[in-house]
């Protein structure tokens, strides 16, 4: 592993990945990755398609089981924990293909993630009215207030992306894993998205984001982790990573060679 910077100890580590490996039929999608996601900052995962970024997310959220290695959430190992339990610990995510609750309305999509009830009654504290109020706030923040009664399936592309964000905002998670949340957005939507994200970070959300858009990477990242071929090539401050000619040649192509 290319050591770009010595880990600065300042913010506490929320999630720690240690020597994580995941292979599918012998092919290693993630290989010996060790990474710390620190509290209150935005860590960006960059790397070419197929580098294992989404696989890493799936490993963290428990959708996949690692072949070896450990994942620790606030110093507790969460390997083998069911995804819904990991979610309740405070890890929420979006999906690259969104996976909205497509036959439900926008309102229901947001409301249902606030509700933890597995039994026939609502086990969470807080009245229904409060929840409805909160849903409306979120829909307003994401610009979906006029689409509350529309089925997710019938939304336009950008609106779906915002619904995906609205859903994650409705959780009480401390950490968000965002898988290419801004891809395909037009410039105006994209501005709205960045503003939204900055606001959430100020609220104290820890974010790990997979992003290709250099602009976003540069403007929002507190740290960048660089993956390629399932391996973590570098991990450090944006200037260090982006300033490293070797890395940028892998990802952004060689300059003037």
């Amino acid at each position, binding site marked *: 592993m290319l050591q770009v910077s010595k880990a600065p100890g300042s913010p506490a580590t929320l999630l720690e990945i240690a020597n994580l490996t995941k292979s599918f039929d012998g092919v290693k999608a993630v290989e010996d990755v060790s990474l710390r996601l620190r509290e209150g900052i935005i860590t960006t995962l960059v790397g*070419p398609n197929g580098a294992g970024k989404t696989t890493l997310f799936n490993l963290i959220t428990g959708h996949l089981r690692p072949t070896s290695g450990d994942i620790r959430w606030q110093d507790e190992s969460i390997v083998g924990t069911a995804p819904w339990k990991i979610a309740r610990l405070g890890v929420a995510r979006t999906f690259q293909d969104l996976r909205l609750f497509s036959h439900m309305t926008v309102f229901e999509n947001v409301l249902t993630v606030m509700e933890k009830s597995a039994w026939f009654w609502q086990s969470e504290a807080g009245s229904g009215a409060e929840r409805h109020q909160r849903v409306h706030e979120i829909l307003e923040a994401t610009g979906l207030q006029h689409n509350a009664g529309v089925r997710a399936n019938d939304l336009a592309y950008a609106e779906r992306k915002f619904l995906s964000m609205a859903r994650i905002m409705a959780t009480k998670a401390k950490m968000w894993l965002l898988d290419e949340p801004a891809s395909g957005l037009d410039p105006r939507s994209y501005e709205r998205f960045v503003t939204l994200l900055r606001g959430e970070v100020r609220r104290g959300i820890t974010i790990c984001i997979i992003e290709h858009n250099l602009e976003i990477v540069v403007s929002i990242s507190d740290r960048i982790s660089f993956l390629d071929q399932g391996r973590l090539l570098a991990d450090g401050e944006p200037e260090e990573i982006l300033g490293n000619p070797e890395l940028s040649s892998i990802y952004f*192509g060689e300059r003037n060679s």
Partner: protein
Amino acid sequence: MTDALISVDNLRVGYGGRVVLDDISLQIRKNEVLCLVGHNGAGKSTLMNALFGVVTRQGGEISVDGQRLHQPEPKKMAALGIGLVPEGRGIFPGLTVDEIFQLAMWATGVPQRERPERIEWVMSILPRIKTFHARRAGTLSGGQQQMVSIARALLSRPRCLLMDEPSIGLAPKLFQDLLQPIRQLQQQLGLSILLVEQNVKEAFKISDRVLVMRSGAIIHETSPEALADNKVLMQFY
């Protein structure tokens, strides 16, 4: 334009009421590498598939050699000398390379007696395939698979190749290794290539012309050099 091999006018494509391509017009000229860039979801792959007749268009015209096509279909396009190297691998993992070639030639109607000769010709262009032609495609490495996919498209002796993100899943080094032969091939055979690529820096090195797509529309046409200098446009991918 007289040197247009393929021209597309006002092409529209949508799925279930959602417009994916809106009023697209472009030309692929003879003997050029045209690079199509844009974000995920901008409609690049859909454009390619619509061109090749995999996706049904809802409006607009597609012409090859100035001849309007009533309804493009993969088989017809192949007969007109156009080959598609689709996104992903474009191979059937359970089939051997030989079988994939056989299937491709059968599908595009290459006469039986010409088939061995075609395979020989392709193997002479991409000689490395000889070392693994009997293996199942699923067991090959990413680069080898991509090579098979390109070879498969070449079997119909195309004048134009449509290549959809050949870099996906390839190590950057491998991709570089792939691009140079593609360029050589293009020059050697006088091919036109429409290249969709995210890895623009690499792609630009072999491109003659660049189209920038966003939200189902072409927003800019330029040369690779000009685009690389255009900071405003560069930030969109």
